[in-house]
């Protein structure tokens, strides 16, 4: 029983990483139906944002607040990945709705571009670019309605983008001069060091838990609760759920579907950034860090039932627990009198990578019997 409990604890920890990584995809792929292969790279941007934030908080002026850089980086990562996601939606995805194959190829291309971008461009310039994009997009929203409705609005927008570019360049130069590490391009992996209060272990019900894992569980919990409240309680949540089900009718009801698409994609991408923070706490950060999670994320969303957030939650923890049971060989400890042939097979899969193979195989078999996943959509509309 104790072993099983131990496995459940570890499974929840593994599942939390999967869940936080898959949550954004559950919105972008599950609700919007967009196959975004750049989702992993949006996570990678979130991880690099954590690294940049950490270095900025090491500056003498911010040193007293160093312990809180992870909390700040969660918000920053959401904004950075969200901004990149919005640009991606406005420039590429919008033209490809209803063309899944083209979307898949285009977003794969974007993922390669983003990987090369962090290798070839100094992170200070990347930061400057994000700052200018953010200012350029947000500033026109604060213009008075009188200006927004005037014919000269495009000139005001041009002026705001020029201002944003200037601020971006100045920020990049400032970051380069203050933190030399960020002023050079490098393809080498970098490390994020957890602040002192997140290091070490904590004991829960007789089990020791790394504090970083616990932090990831908390980040995941907060993200899940926030996104469920947003989708179910807010006006934008109702609009998003409505547009994903019947775009044309929503347009006829007065909803600007283009605005809803941008916001939905931005939120999904922002959540990928939050996942990047979690991933950066587990290991080193490099251009390929997101690629390791993308297949797992798609598996979670498909297994849970596309378009069903509850399914995504169950699927993440299910896969997490199975990974621990198989990968750590715990099944053999829980059931010591297992037949020899079965124990040999389980022993063969008792490594992390082989456990993944086994789990993906099990998911494929499961989907043969339940192609709509754990929680398929129900109702008269589906039946008809």
């Amino acid at each position, binding site marked *: 029983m104790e072993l099983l409990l131990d496995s459940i604890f570890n499974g929840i920890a593994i599942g939390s990483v999967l869940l936080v990584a898959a949550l954004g995809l559950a919105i972008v792929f599950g609700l919007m139906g967009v196959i975004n292969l750049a989702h992993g790279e949006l996570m990678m941007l979130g991880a690099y944002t954590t690294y940049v934030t950490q270095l900025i908080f090491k500056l003498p002026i911010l040193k007293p607040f160093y312990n809180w850089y992870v909390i700040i980086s969660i918000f920053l990562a959401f904004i950075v990945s969200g901004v990149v996601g919005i640009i991606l939606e406005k420039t590429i995805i919008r033209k490809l709705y209803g063309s899944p194959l083209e979307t898949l190829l285009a977003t794969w291309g974007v993922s390669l571009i983003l990987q090369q971008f962090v290798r070839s461009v100094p992170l200070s310039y990347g930061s400057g670019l994000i700052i200018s994009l953010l200012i350029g997009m947000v500033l026109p929203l604060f213009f008075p309605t009188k200006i927004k409705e005037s014919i000269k609005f495009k000139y005001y927008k041009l002026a705001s983008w020029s201002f944003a570019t200037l601020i971006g360049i100045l920020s990049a130069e400032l970051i380069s001069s203050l933190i030399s590490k960020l002023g050079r391009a490098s393809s080498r992996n970098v490390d994020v060091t957890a602040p002192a209060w997140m290091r070490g272990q904590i004991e829960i019900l007789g089990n020791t838990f790394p504090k970083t894992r616990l932090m990831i569980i908390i980040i995941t919990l907060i993200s899940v609760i926030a996104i469920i409240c947003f989708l179910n309680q807010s*006006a*934008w949540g*109702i*609009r998003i*759920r*409505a547009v994903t*089900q*019947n775009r*044309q*009718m*929503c*347009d*006829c*009801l*007065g*909803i*600007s*579907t283009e605005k809803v698409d941008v916001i939905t994609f931005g939120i999904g991408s922002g959540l990928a950034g939050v996942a990047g923070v979690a991933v950066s706490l587990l290991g080193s950060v490099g251009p390929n860090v997101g690629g390791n999670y993308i297949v797992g994320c798609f598996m979670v969303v498909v297994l849970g039932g596309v378009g069903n957030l509850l399914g995504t939650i169950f699927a993440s923890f299910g896969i997490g627990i199975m990974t621990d049971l198989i990968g750590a060989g715990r099944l053999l400890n829980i059931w010591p009198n297992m037949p020899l042939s079965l124990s040999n097979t389980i022993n063969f899969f008792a490594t992390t990578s082989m456990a993944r193979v086994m789990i993906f195989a099990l998911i494929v078999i499961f989907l043969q019997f339940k192609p709509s996943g754990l929680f398929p*959509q129900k*109702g*008269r*509309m*589906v039946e008809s």
Partner: protein
Amino acid sequence: MSKLIEIKSLNIFYGESHILRDIDLSVKAGEMVCVIGRNGVGKTTLLKSLIGLLKTKSGEINFLGENINRQMPHQRARKGIAYVPQGREIIPYLTVEENLMLGMESLPGGLSKNKKIDDFIYELFPILKEFLSRKGGDLSGGQQQQLSIARALLGEPKLLLLDEPTEGIQPNIILDIESAVTKIILEKGIGVLLVEQHLHFVRQADRYYAMQRGGIVASGDSSELSKEVISKFLSV
């Protein structure tokens, strides 16, 4: 009565196919106008072009004196045109209450500022109050039609476009829908452009336009609808 909508020489194409040919039509405030015609003559296409789902090839659509040819459906909805499509098109996984709230998106401030559902909706369709927490997709066809009309009315439209609201609906609910539509015209003074095959409902309209092969071939007061016109243009 002032003209709410006025259509002049409207032409609509599906690719190379010429669907609507030189349509001239108008609807005044507080008036119900019915479009009749056999299946495939372009009645639904006409309503879709008025709400903005189809692009106008040539001609003019003027709403409250303003040309709205180039406006998107959501912009037309915010101007005061509500659309109840054939097949209801309610949002299946949203609750009845959420579906109704969506109707208020076209009001100033949209859904963010308008969340209280007006009681007159429940007076028109009492059944909706009982099913507020039920998923829209789980309602029967008749209930969905009532929900679809109620949703359109919550946007306080000036013009209501109704596409075959009685299609596939059981007779007692048809009467409910008929009386609801006539009641809102009287009480709210909105204009209604109705596409319908159900003769009893057609006779409730003030005027009619008869369509054939994408064009309007006859029009007049509904009280003048003769047996010949009915047998020629209605699938009854």
